[in-house]
C-alpha cells in the first residue's frame, strides 16, 4: 500500500512536469503573443515593441519557461501578461464560482444518481428501470448548449421566472441564479453516474456473495444497504472521478451562456489572449485537482471495497 502510494505520487509529479512543458509548448505555438493582443488602434508599433520587452516576451521560450518553473517551485504562479496582476489572483477570483457551481451540481446529482442507480439495478430490465434509463439517456443526449438556450428562452425570457445571467446578481442574495446552470449540467452527469451505480448494483446483486447472504437469510433492506451498496458505489465513484473532464466542458458552456466568471472561462480567455502564465497556472491547478480527485476516488473505493483501487 505504501509503495503503491509512492508510485502514485511519483507518477503525479511526472504528470505535472510533463503537463507544464506541454501546456507551455502548446500555448507558445499559438500565433501572436500577448503584446499583439494588447494592440489597439492607437498604439504605435514602437509602443507595442516596448510592451513586448516589458512583458519579457522578447526572451527565448526556454528561458521564459525556466523562469516560470523556478517561480512555481517557490510557490509563485507568476504574473498575468494581460492584467499585469498575479496569476494567483486570477485563480482565486475564477475558482469560486466554478466550485460553487460544480459542488452544488454534484450535491444534487450524486444522491439522486445513487438512488436512481439502485432503483434501476434492483429492478433490472423491469419497467421502472427501462423508464429511468430512457429518460436519463434522452437527457444526456441533448447537448448542454441546446438545453441552455432552450431553458433560458423559456424560463427567463418568456416566463421571467429565473435569472438568465449571473451579471448584476449575487449568489448569496439570490440562490436562484444556480437553478438554470445546474439544470443544464444535471442531465448528463446524472445519466453517467446512475448508469454506473446501476451496473454496480446489478453486478453486486448477481454476485455470489450477495446470493449467499440472501440464502443465509439476510433481509432485503439490510442486504441492499450493507452488502450491495458499498460494492455498487465503486463504479460510480470511479466514474465521478472520470466525469471531471466532461463536466469541465459542460461548465465552460454554462459559464459562457450565463456569464459566470469562472474557471473554464478564465482558461479559454487565457488561451485566447495568449496569457501563457495564466494558462499555465490554471492548468496546473486543474491538473492538481484532477490528480487529487482521482487519488481521492481511489482511496474512497479502497475504503469501500479494499484492494479494488489497487487492482484496477
Amino acid at each position: 500500500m505504501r509503495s503503491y502510494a509512492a508510485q502514485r505520487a511519483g507518477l503525479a509529479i511526472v504528470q505535472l512536469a510533463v503537463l507544464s512543458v506541454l501546456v507551455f509548448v502548446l500555448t507558445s505555438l499559438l500565433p501572436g503573443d500577448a503584446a499583439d493582443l494588447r494592440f489597439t488602434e492607437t498604439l504605435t508599433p514602437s509602443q507595442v515593441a516596448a510592451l513586448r520587452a516589458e512583458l519579457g516576451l522578447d526572451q527565448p521560450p526556454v528561458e521564459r519557461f525556466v523562469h516560470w518553473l523556478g517561480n512555481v517551485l517557490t510557490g509563485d504562479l507568476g504574473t498575468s501578461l494581460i492584467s499585469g496582476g498575479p496569476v494567483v489572483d486570477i485563480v482565486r477570483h475564477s475558482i469560486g464560482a466554478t466550485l460553487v457551481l460544480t459542488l452544488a451540481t454534484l450535491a444534487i446529482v450524486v444522491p439522486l444518481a445513487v438512488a436512481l442507480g439502485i432503483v434501476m439495478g434492483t429492478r433490472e430490465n423491469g419497467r421502472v428501470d427501462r423508464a429511468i434509463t430512457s429518460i436519463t439517456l434522452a437527457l444526456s443526449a441533448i447537448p448542454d448548449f441546446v438545453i441552455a438556450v432552450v431553458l433560458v428562452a423559456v424560463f427567463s425570457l418568456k416566463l421571467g421566472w429565473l435569472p438568465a445571467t449571473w451579471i448584476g446578481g449575487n449568489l448569496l442574495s439570490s440562490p436562484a441564479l444556480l437553478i438554470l446552470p445546474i439544470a443544464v449540467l444535471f442531465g448528463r452527469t446524472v445519466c453517467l453516474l446512475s448508469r454506473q451505480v446501476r451496473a454496480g448494483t446489478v453486478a453486486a446483486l448477481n454476485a455470489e456473495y450477495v446470493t449467499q447472504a440472501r440464502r443465509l437469510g439476510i433481509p432485503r433492506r439490510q442486504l441492499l444497504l450493507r452488502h450491495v451498496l458499498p460494492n455498487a458505489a465503486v463504479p460510480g465513484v470511479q466514474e465521478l472521478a472520470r466525469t471531471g473532464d466532461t463536466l469541465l466542458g459542460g461548465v465552460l458552456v454554462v459559464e459562457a451562456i450565463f456569464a459566470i466568471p469562472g474557471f473554464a472561462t478564465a482558461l479559454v480567455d487565457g488561451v485566447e489572449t495568449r496569457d501563457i502564465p495564466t494558462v499555465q497556472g490554471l492548468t496546473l491547478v486543474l491538473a492538481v485537482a484532477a490528480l487529487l480527485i482521482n487519488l481521492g476516488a481511489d482511496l474512497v473505493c479502497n475504503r469501500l471495497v479494499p484492494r479494488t483501487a489497487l487492482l484496477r
Partner: protein
Amino acid sequence: MTPVVRVTGLSATAGEAVLVDGVSFEVVAGEVTALVGASGSGKTTSALALLGEHADGVQLGGYVEVDGQLVVASNGVTAAAQSIRGRVVAYMPQHPGSALNPARRIGTTLQELAKLHDGDAREAVRAAQVPGDRSTLKRFPYQFSGGQRQRVALAQTLTCRPKVLVLDEPSTGLDSITRLQLVHELRDLAATGLGILLLSHDLDLVRALASRVVVLDAGQVIATDVLPPAPDLKVTGTSAAGQPLLTAMNLSASLRPRGRDVVLHEADLAVRAGACLGVVGRSGSGKTTLARCLAGLHERYTGTILLDDEPLPVLRKRTRDQHRRVQYVWQEVRGSFDERRPVDQQVARTAQRLRGLAPDKAHAEAVATLARLGVAAITAARPPSRLSGGELQRAALARAVLANPDVLICDEITTALDDHGTALVLDLLTELKDRGTALIWIGHDLRLVAAVADRVLVLDAGRVVEQGPPATITTEPHHELTRRLVAATRIGNPQSPPAETPPVLTTDSRSEPRR
C-alpha cells in the same frame, strides 16, 4: 429418526421445459444424504428448493417440508421460506471463497448473522477452524488465502446454527489430500447432529460419506441408495522398453524473469514411446508448470528438453513437425476455446494446420474422434458456451489427439468427467499408447495415475521427491507426501477405510476458479 427435510414429488418447470420431475428424498439429522448426477441433472435446482429458491421463470411444485414447515407446496413457494433461510437450511455454494463480500470485514458479517439467527460466531469460527482473534476478524476476504476463505464461508453458515447444511460440489478443484481432509471434516459436522445434503458427481466422496444416495438424471430420480460400483481401472502394466522419446534434464522454471519465483527445481524425467509417465502432486506443486515447459508454452526455464535426442525448443521456435509431435491438453478447458466458433471446427483445425488435411477431411476426423469420446456431432457443432465442462474436456483432448502426436501431455483432463466419460477417455488413450504415443499424465489422484501410468513421478513444492513404477509407489511410499497421497486414494473404498487421523494441512491447496 424423523427427517429434518422431506421432499416429495418435487417438480420445477420453466414454461414448457421440465427441469426437475417428481424428485423425492429425505435428509436426516446427523446423516449425509447425497444427490448424485452429472451437471445439469437437476441437483442444484432440487437443493435450492429447500430454501424456496428458484431461477427466474421457474415454477416449483410438489412438497418440500423443512423442520416441520412447508417451504414449497403445490402452488409454489410459501411465505415460510424466508424464515428458514440460514436459520434452518444453510447452503454452501460450489466456490465458497467467492461467496464472501469483498467490501466487508469477516467479523462484521459474522456478527450480523449471529444477531439475526441468535447464533454464536465464536463457536462457529472454532468449528470451521478459523482463528478467532480480533485482528483476524477485522480482516477483509482478500487478506485470506483460498483455503482460509473457504473456512470463513463455512464459519458464516455455521453461525446461523442451521439444522441442515447443503454442500454443492464441495470437492471441485481439491487435490486428493485436501479432499480426504474434507471427508473427515464433514463427518465431524454430521456427528454434531447436522443434517447434510451433499450434491456431487464425485462418487468416491459420496461413497465415503453418504448414508443415503439419490441418483438424478435429467431431472428424474433413476436410483436410490444404490451407487454404480467403483470402476475397475485396469492396470495397463509395463510396456515395451526402448530409447526415451522425450527427455527433460535439470529442468528449473520460474514465474518471473531472471529466475525469480522458481516453481520447479531441477527436475529430470524421461518417457518412452508407447509408455505413460504419471506426474502426481498437490495443487501448486509445479505439475502444470512442468507440463507447460514440455509443451513449449512456458518459456522461463533452464535445463534441456530432448525429443528423439534432438533439442526441443520453446513453442514459437518449433518446426511444424515438432509442433505436431508434442501436444498438450488443458486443465482449464473452457478458457481454451474461442467463444465465437463451433467446437468441432476448432477441433478440426489441428488436423488442418499440423497434418495438412483438407478442411472437410479434418472435420470428418474431428467429428469421429469426438463421437468416440461421447460428444455427439450436433453438440460439437455448437459454440463452447453451450457445452458442459465434461464435454469440453473431451473436446480439448480430441483437439490434441487430432495432431497424431508422439507425445501427449494430459493435465488433469478428467476432473469434470463422470465415470463413464473417464472410461471413454482412458479407452482412447490406451489405444494411442498401443500405437506408440508417449503419454504424460498429470493428476493429483494417485489411484487414477497409478492405474494409467507405467512410471509415476511425485512432485512436491517443485521438486521430484520420489519416482518409480506405480506398484512400488503405492505399496512402499518413501516420502511423507507420497504416503498421504496413497492414504487419500482410499476415499470411498469401503474395503480399505482411510486413516483415522486426518493429516494436517500444510498448504492451502484449493485452486480458485479463474476470474
